[in-house]
């Protein structure tokens, strides 16, 4: 079970790590790189708490092998804010009380950003279906959907 050397870019920074081929990208982010913002809620791609982007594509990092990250650009919740400035989604989640326990929040923020990157004015239905793979047990989704819509609206005005 020899480990494989992996070079990748995470949130813009070059990284190297050794991955057992059985380890998921989520395991590698959390255990090798200390990026514990991505969470494991299920390990089967059903909850979305581990959402990251790989070369811009939204995926569950529990369903990606660490060794597959070779040469890829990975985006996680830790890379959402630009230095000290929060992404509008992050700010709106706080303002709308769109989190209670906060465990699903990193995955939802990453997923919502991927939505807004490709659709600047999603409808409520589009937001709900896009986020259907991000389980939240605390909020009933109401304030999450409102926060995403409000962030989208603010980002449209800022353009």
């Amino acid at each position: 079970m020899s480990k494989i050397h992996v070079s990748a870019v995470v949130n813009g920074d070059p990284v190297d790590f050794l991955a057992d081929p059985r380890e998921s990208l989520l395991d590698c982010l959390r255990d090798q790189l200390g990026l514990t913002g991505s969470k494991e809620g299920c390990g089967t791609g059903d909850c979305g708490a581990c959402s990251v982007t790989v070369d811009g594509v939204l995926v569950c990092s529990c369903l990606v092998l660490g060794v597959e990250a070779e040469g890829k650009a990975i985006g996680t919740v830790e890379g959402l804010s630009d230095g000290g400035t929060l992404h509008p989604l992050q700010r709106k989640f706080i303002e709308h009380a769109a989190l209670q326990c906060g465990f699903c929040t990193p995955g939802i923020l990453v997923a919502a950003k991927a939505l807004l990157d490709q659709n600047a004015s999603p409808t409520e239905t589009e937001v709900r279906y896009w986020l259907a793979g991000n389980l939240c047990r605390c909020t009933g989704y109401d304030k999450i959907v409102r926060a995403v819509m409000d962030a989208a609206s603010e980002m449209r005005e800022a353009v």
Partner: protein
Amino acid sequence: MHYHKPHTFEDALKIAANARGVTRFLAGGTDVLVQLRAGIVTPDDLIDLKLIPGVHDIARTADGGWTIGIAVSGAELGRHAALVAEWPGVVEGMNLVGSTQVQGRATLAGNLCNGSPAADSVPGLVAAGATVSVIGPNGTRKLAVEDIPASPGRTHLQAGEIVTAIHLPPRGAQGGDAYLRFIPRTEMDIAVVGCAISLTLDGDKIATARVALGAVAPKVLLVADAAAALIGTTLDDKALAALQAAATAAAQPITDRRGTVEFRKDVTAVLAARTARIAYARAKGAVK
């Protein structure tokens, strides 16, 4: 577990031929990783096919059909406007697999080779008359999609064989397809029943039809009687009733945590009629 990333299918074949234990291929990865994590299957050799040139391509063929690479994700399929316009049923089946996140990874080939009778993308491919190219120790061959699944978790692919591409025939004029599934929630569930129908029209009359059912038998069903019930009709109530009767008769579901025999048979009839109406409307150009 050994992880391999060949750059040609021939290299992939060699690796598979030399492997001694459990071998798995990675097209998307969603199923393999779930099984790995749950301890159901830990392959000794995992062969990642995503780095082979061409596996991410969707290409128009000379006859007006399509060849879809085995690593094309559901999201990529859904973004391909021309393909969506011609084969909306095939694409909507694939796009129902899992979440947005899963769509970034899951593939037609993976969904097919996983062997689940409830695979959402498979009935659409079967109804479309799709075929797959296979390479193996004994050379290459082409199979109809409906000839791949064998039983839950098993396929008719021989040891060491790899699917190299998926082919859709030309849509032709006045053709339409659709896929509907039933799930208890709005998303994130495995199909309790799935139904795909592809048809072509001659004027208002149905000229050709293929009807496929998912999750109601050990493998996807291509139901000739159901197709026969449609051909030559204008999808009137009588044709719909005959379609429902034929589909229900063909279904051999089981009772499990997702549904009962009776429920699956009832819903098979419901979905058959609803799917037929959509496919017919699409063929008439009323809806895309």
